[in-house]
């Protein structure tokens, strides 16, 4: 049985841990709120952009123009680029390990079918993991989540877009944590390139615009913007998911610490009681010996 002093020391150290994990939970909760606001703030832009693209496609279809664009071109898959989005920091449950595991599975899947795979790593956790294991990494982006900027999404897209147009890669996929809610995050694999054009619904009686430059040039430019937007959404989602995962993990840790402290307090009281009982019986027997 542990001595009284040892138990007291353990209680004090676990109380410290509890304070730290609880503070981390509060910070994660605040960051989560901001991340959710960012997701909401981006919606009007995305919707408007999709409407404009929809208008343009509906006009182009009526003129029987085939949609041809390097980014829409489907080729035989020989080289794949996977964008793996993890976090920069740990202590967030299975957030990073889920992404790393799914990425590894996708790499194995493509290698089995004879394609080679290159990675773009976003987030330090994933980057360190894949560098250590000697994977082929085209580019990595570290410490971007603290101050998330749209420009980062543009840079990432730029990186794989020109590889795709130069036919150095035939497919681009992104692996990331999708933010469903504060308690549910799931790892998603989405295809970024080739783009799958969405056919807009209804709205065919939309009156035509004057275009500058030509329709087709505008369309190409908008596809690029659309891709930037998708990447931006992925970054925002992953950021929110990371904070939510960390919040949950830290809440669990705090809870566990509380339980542990309760148990130790019980042990401490028992130990103290034993000590007191021993002392009393020693005094009593000492006094009895004197009287005797």
């Amino acid at each position: 049985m542990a001595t009284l002093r040892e138990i007291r020391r353990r209680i004090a150290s676990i109380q410290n841990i509890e304070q730290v994990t609880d503070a981390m939970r509060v910070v994660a909760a605040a960051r989560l709120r901001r991340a959710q606001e960012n997701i909401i703030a981006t919606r009007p832009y995305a919707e408007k952009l999709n409407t404009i693209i929809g208008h343009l496609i509906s006009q182009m279809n009526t003129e029987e123009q085939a949609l041809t664009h390097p980014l829409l071109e489907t080729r035989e898959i020989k080289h794949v680029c996977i964008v793996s989005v993890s976090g920069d920091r740990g202590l967030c449950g299975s957030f990073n390990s889920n992404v790393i595991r799914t990425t590894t599975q996708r790499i194995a899947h493509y290698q089995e079918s004879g394609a080679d795979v290159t990675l773009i790593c976003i987030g330090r956790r994933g980057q360190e993991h894949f560098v250590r294991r000697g994977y082929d990494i085209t580019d990595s982006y570290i410490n971007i989540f603290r101050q998330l900027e749209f420009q980062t999404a543009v840079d990432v897209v730029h990186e794989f877009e020109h590889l795709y147009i130069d036919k150095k890669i035939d497919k681009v996929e992104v692996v990331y944590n999708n933010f469903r809610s504060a308690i549910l995050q799931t790892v998603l694999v989405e295809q970024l390139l080739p783009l799958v054009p969405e056919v807009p619904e209804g709205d065919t009686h939309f009156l035509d615009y004057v275009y500058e430059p030509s329709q087709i040039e505008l369309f190409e430019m908008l596809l690029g913007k659309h891709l930037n937007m998708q990447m931006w959404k992925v970054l925002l989602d992953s950021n929110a998911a990371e904070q939510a995962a960390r919040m949950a993990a830290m809440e669990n840790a705090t809870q566990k610490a509380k339980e542990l402290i309760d148990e130790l307090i019980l042990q401490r009281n028992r130990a103290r009681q034993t000590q007191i009982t021993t002392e009393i019986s020693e005094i009593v027997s000492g006094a009895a010996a004197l009287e005797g």
Partner: protein
Amino acid sequence: MLNRSFHLEIRTPEQLIYEGDVTSVQAPGVEGNFQILAGHIPFLTALDVGEIRVRESSETSQLMATSGGVFEVLRTGVTVLVETAEWASEIDVSRAESALDRAQTQLTENAPDLNRPRAEAALARAKNRIKVASNL
């Protein structure tokens, strides 16, 4: 002088930059700068790196730097979707200058792994920010 106004909305992926009724807006189209007044026909164009000038009345105007986007005119109003936009007064000049230096060094060093289009784009953005900030 015509003083009719129309509705204008300027958005970036991160936030709403401007919303309100204006009498004119000037923007950097890929085929040259242009100005839109009330009653313009539906028009869709791409924007280049440059400056957008918003006039709420003939006396007042506000200036912002943008790095390009889409400009749509409908009967109901004008929507501008730009990837970045900053009011002239909000531009961080020292940051833009350091970005300018960085891009210039990259371009002069011309390292083999240099991503030339990206560096050139960064250079153009930084130059534009500095220009707009000095035109306050």
